[in-house]
């Protein structure tokens, strides 16, 4: 096989012919010489022997002739490559482990680098995107808030450093009536100049003109390319219109796919036409601006701070003292930056583990080949040649590993995209590109150079001939120290990854297990937005809602049904603001505004603690009733009976004249992203304050049995009552789990890395012990022959490597303890110094290392002492 390969390869360079010619020439020479000798009277056999003797060493002569060809380097390289392939073939387990190890490390690093490069480093798809800034209000505590519309108007007028400034509302789902029926669409309202700030032209039609932004101007809408293609069937846009919240909007333009804010809106409408807010305390819009030529983000930030201070001097109700301007890319990427950077660091760690593993594997293998190398050295191979040979071997492995890494990376990216964590913004824009590929190869080749050359040099520095004589490396002690250091380093890195993976995974489990104070099992949810334009009056819309609730309640398998504005699920935009007390003062704290009915509490089994539940008498004509949760009762009326107290959620809904009377106290519903007591709130009744129409969506919740009939019944009922209302069905459990999807993604990736590191560390330990056992076969044989028990000999072999592992674990624990702070902001429930995660990591690694060291040690002691001793 090897020979055939050699010929195939050599033929490429015309060397095969040369070799054949040389062979034939020599044969001819020997025949002529023998013929001459025969003619002189020698026997044929004798003549041939004498001819050979006179020729003097056919192979040496061939070698010297090859030297004279001047293609020596090339030939040697080809020969070395073939030799490498042959040796790798001879030990496929080593080759496979080495290549897989590298593929894993390089693949994970490349995938993470690609994500980071695509998400964090690449500019946004807007012209001169570096000029774009995101501007928010900064609270006294240092946090940031959405901006008050009135403050935004003042900023826009006063700022010089920002050339153009625009605001938009958060994207919200709503039901839009198209010519072909009702559809769910994500909609955002934007101020004038919004499209100019972005600097992106529509692909069809135009953007709204100033008249269409003016108060009371004609209602127009701009749609996204995606919505236009998938929902509007690529018609128009001229002549197309959408009914949004009861107002018919003419579609005037289509924006290209890249023009997407966080929240990926389908429809943009003009905000200034009808501004619903009049208070500076309503933090409702996100502001973005384009820096004036030459201005920096810091300048803009300082200028806006001054502007805000001036506004505050004239309007004391302005609640945030300063302004936070930052690059828009930062705002888009947001928290993903920290997570992605962390994942990249983890991937780099994994690559390091892979490299140390490769290094120790190469070392082990190199030692195992001391005899072979010594043999080659004594046959005349120079040190350079041997180093080159070993280097080439690791380069071959590195290139194979690099290719494997690219495959692994594309696989991982495909997996990430399939996972679509939502935690990774701009994920659709990410793909493997040549730059990243170059990065991969750099890593792979760098690995080969760094870790392939080291064992090669260490091995050939000593006197190989003496190594050959003694059958072992002449400088084993020094190299063993290097090796121990490598193994300890690998173990330490593995501890880091295991701790990180363990912490994030435990945090995820803790989040999903954390009691929320309400029932999640068997609760189905149906989210919908009633298209306000369809109903002539609030009463008519209420009839529809009642129809849905009654219909669902009547269904088989439904235990309870209720209605709410927002589900207690993170990420499902809650509405909060200060409330006004009887004496006219506004609270410092914000309270969540929730709309519900009595059935909501029954369905979610939220307990009534004091007072009474909503009752049928709480109708439009009666005094408006409120249920407050324990956290709010504690915050506003500590030590007092909240029942009978009154307050006004002024600014939260369009009923400023209607104060609320507390009729009861209910249990707190916790969201996993808030601490207990962190989101106090109150409930109003949907019949008394029907704010869900047009403004917000609503969710019907139903507790159902496990036949599955309940969910189907829910959808059926909504469809029957109004076919223009699209419904999104789910379960409360899935909604909550889905809200933690970015965490799940992180936990998934990090624990994957941790497991890979564990595996690699085991391979490393196994390799070291297997090698040690093989090296000390003779010693072990002697000890066995002298009467030591197998287990004594075995633990002797194991002890050495397990000590090294122990040192690595100790170093790794200290490192992990020091570096854990980096994880603090990514963990919700679990402390970064969680002893359970540390114990699990160390326990798993220790146990795995013990097993990995036991197997080869056991194999070593199974040999019969007599055989070992005679074999040597």
């Amino acid at each position, binding site marked *: 096989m090897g020979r055939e390969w050699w010929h195939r390869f050599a033929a490429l360079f015309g060397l095969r012919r040369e070799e054949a*010619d*040389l062979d*034939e*020439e*020599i044969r*001819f*020479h020997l*025949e*002529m*010489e023998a*013929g*001459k000798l025969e003619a002189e009277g020698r026997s044929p056999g004798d003549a041939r022997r004498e001819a050979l003797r*006179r*020729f*003097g*060493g*056919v192979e*040496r*002569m061939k070698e*010297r*002739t090859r*030297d*004279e*060809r*001047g293609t020596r380097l090339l030939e040697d390289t080809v020969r070395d490559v073939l030799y490498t392939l042959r040796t790798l073939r001879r030990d496929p387990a080593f080759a496979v482990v080495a290549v897989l190890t590298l593929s894993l490390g390089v693949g994970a690093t490349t995938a993470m680098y690609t994500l980071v490069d695509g998400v964090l480093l690449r500019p946004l798809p807007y012209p001169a995107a570096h000029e774009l800034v995101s501007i928010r209000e900064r609270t006294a505590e240092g946090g940031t808030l959405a901006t008050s519309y009135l403050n935004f108007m003042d900023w826009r007028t006063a700022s010089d450093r920002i050339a153009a400034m625009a605001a938009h509302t958060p994207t919200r789902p709503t039901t839009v009536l198209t010519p072909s029926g009702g559809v769910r669409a994500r909609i955002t309202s934007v101020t004038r100049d919004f499209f100019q700030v972005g600097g992106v032209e529509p692909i069809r039609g135009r953007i709204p003109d100033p008249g269409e932004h003016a108060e009371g101007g004609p209602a127009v809408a701009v749609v996204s390319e995606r919505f236009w293609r998938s929902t509007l069937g690529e018609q128009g846009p001229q002549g197309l219109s959408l009914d949004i919240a009861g107002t018919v909007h003419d579609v005037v333009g289509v924006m290209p796919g890249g023009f997407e804010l966080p929240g990926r809106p389908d429809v943009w409408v003009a905000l200034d036409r009808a501004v619903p807010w009049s208070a500076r305390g309503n933090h409702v819009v996100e502001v973005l601006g384009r820096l004036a030529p030459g201005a920096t983000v810091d300048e803009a930030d300082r200028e806006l701070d001054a502007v805000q201070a001036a506004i505050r001097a004239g309007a004391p109700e302005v609640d945030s003292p300063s302004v936070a301007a930052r690059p828009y890319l930062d705002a888009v990427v947001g928290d993903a930056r920290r997570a992605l950077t962390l994942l990249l660091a983890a991937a780099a760690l994994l690559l390091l583990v892979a490299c140390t593993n490769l290094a120790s594997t190469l070392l082990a293998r190199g030692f195992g080949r001391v005899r072979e190398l010594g043999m080659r050295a004594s046959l005349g191979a120079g040190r350079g040649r041997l180093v080159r040979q070993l280097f080439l071997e690791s380069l071959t492995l590195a290139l194979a590993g690099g290719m494997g890494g690219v495959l692994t990376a594309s696989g991982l990216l495909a997996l990430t995209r399939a996972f679509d964590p939502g935690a990774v913004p701009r994920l659709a824009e990410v793909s493997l590109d040549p730059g990243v590929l170059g990065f991969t190869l750099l890593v792979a080749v760098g690995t080969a150079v760094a870790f392939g050359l080291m064992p090669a040099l260490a091995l050939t520095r000593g006197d190989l001939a003496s190594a050959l004589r003694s059958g072992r490396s002449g400088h084993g002690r020094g190299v063993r120290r290097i090796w121990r250091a490598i193994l300890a380093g690998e173990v330490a890195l593995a501890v880091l990854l295991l701790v990180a993976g363990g912490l994030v995974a435990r945090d995820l489990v803790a989040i999903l297990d954390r009691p929320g104070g309400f029932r999640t099992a068997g609760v189905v949810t149906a989210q919908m937005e009633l298209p306000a334009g369809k109903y002539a009056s609030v009463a008519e819309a209420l009839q529809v809602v009642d129809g849905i609730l009654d219909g669902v309640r009547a269904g088989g398998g439904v235990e309870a049904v209720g209605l709410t504005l927002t589900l207690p699920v993170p990420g499902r935009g809650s509405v909060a603001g200060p409330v006004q007390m009887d004496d006219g003062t506004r609270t410092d704290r914000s309270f969540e505004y929730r709309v519900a009915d009595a059935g909501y509490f029954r369905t979610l089994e939220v307990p009534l603690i004091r007072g009474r539940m909503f009752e049928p008498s709480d109708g439009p004509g009666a005094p408006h009733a409120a249920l407050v949760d324990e956290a709010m009762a504690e915050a506003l009326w500590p030590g007092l009976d909240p029942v009978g107290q009154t307050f006004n959620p002024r600014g939260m809904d369009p009923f400023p004249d209607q104060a609320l009377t507390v009729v009861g106290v209910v249990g707190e519903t916790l969201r996993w992203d808030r601490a207990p007591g962190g989101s106090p709130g109150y409930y109003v009744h949907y019949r008394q304050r029907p704010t869900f129409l047009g403004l917000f969506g609503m969710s019907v919740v139903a507790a159902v049995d496990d036949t599955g009939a309940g969910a189907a019944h829910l959808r059926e009922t909504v469809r029957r009552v109004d076919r223009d209302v699209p419904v999104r069905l789910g379960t409360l459990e899935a909604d909550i789990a889905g809200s933690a999807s970015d965490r799940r993604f992180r936990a998934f990736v990090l624990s994957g890395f941790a497991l890979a590191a564990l595996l690699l560390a085991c391979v490393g330990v196994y390799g070291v012990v297997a090698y040690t056992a093989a090296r000390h076969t003779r010693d072990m044989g002697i000890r066995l022959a002298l009467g030591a028990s197998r287990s004594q000999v075995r633990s002797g072999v194991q002890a050495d490597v397990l000590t090294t592992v122990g040192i690595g674990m100790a170093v790794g624990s200290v490192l992990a303890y020091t570096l854990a702070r980096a994880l603090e902001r990514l963990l919700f429930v679990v402390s970064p110094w969680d002893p359970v995660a540390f114990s699990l990591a160390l326990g798993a690694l220790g146990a795995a290392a013990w097993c990995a060291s036991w197997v080869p040690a056991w194999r070593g002691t199974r040999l019969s002492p007599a055989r070992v001793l005679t074999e040597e």
Partner: protein
Amino acid sequence: MGDGHAELLPGTLDLIVLRVLSLEPMHGWGIGERIRLLSDDVFEVNQGSLYPALQRMRRKGWIRAEWRRSENNRRARYYALTTAGEARLGDARDEWRRTSGAVERILGAVPEGA
């Protein structure tokens, strides 16, 4: 060596091979035989060192090789002088004559005052 044979002086193999080939194209074994015959059995070419030398001279472009039928009808690689080889032969011969003349003069010199 004591039997009347002599080793070639270093560097003279090229000259001798070129000279032999200037008579007629010849294969490797024949070159060795020719050298032995022409030197009246004084020079015994180390057969194993002939082929590396031929390879070197080919690389330098002094000789070229081609496969032909030999006198006993066997396939053999024949070497022939190229134009560059002829020029080289001239140079090498001059050089040799200069060197050997100088050596001869030194060996034949009579000590002063003798």
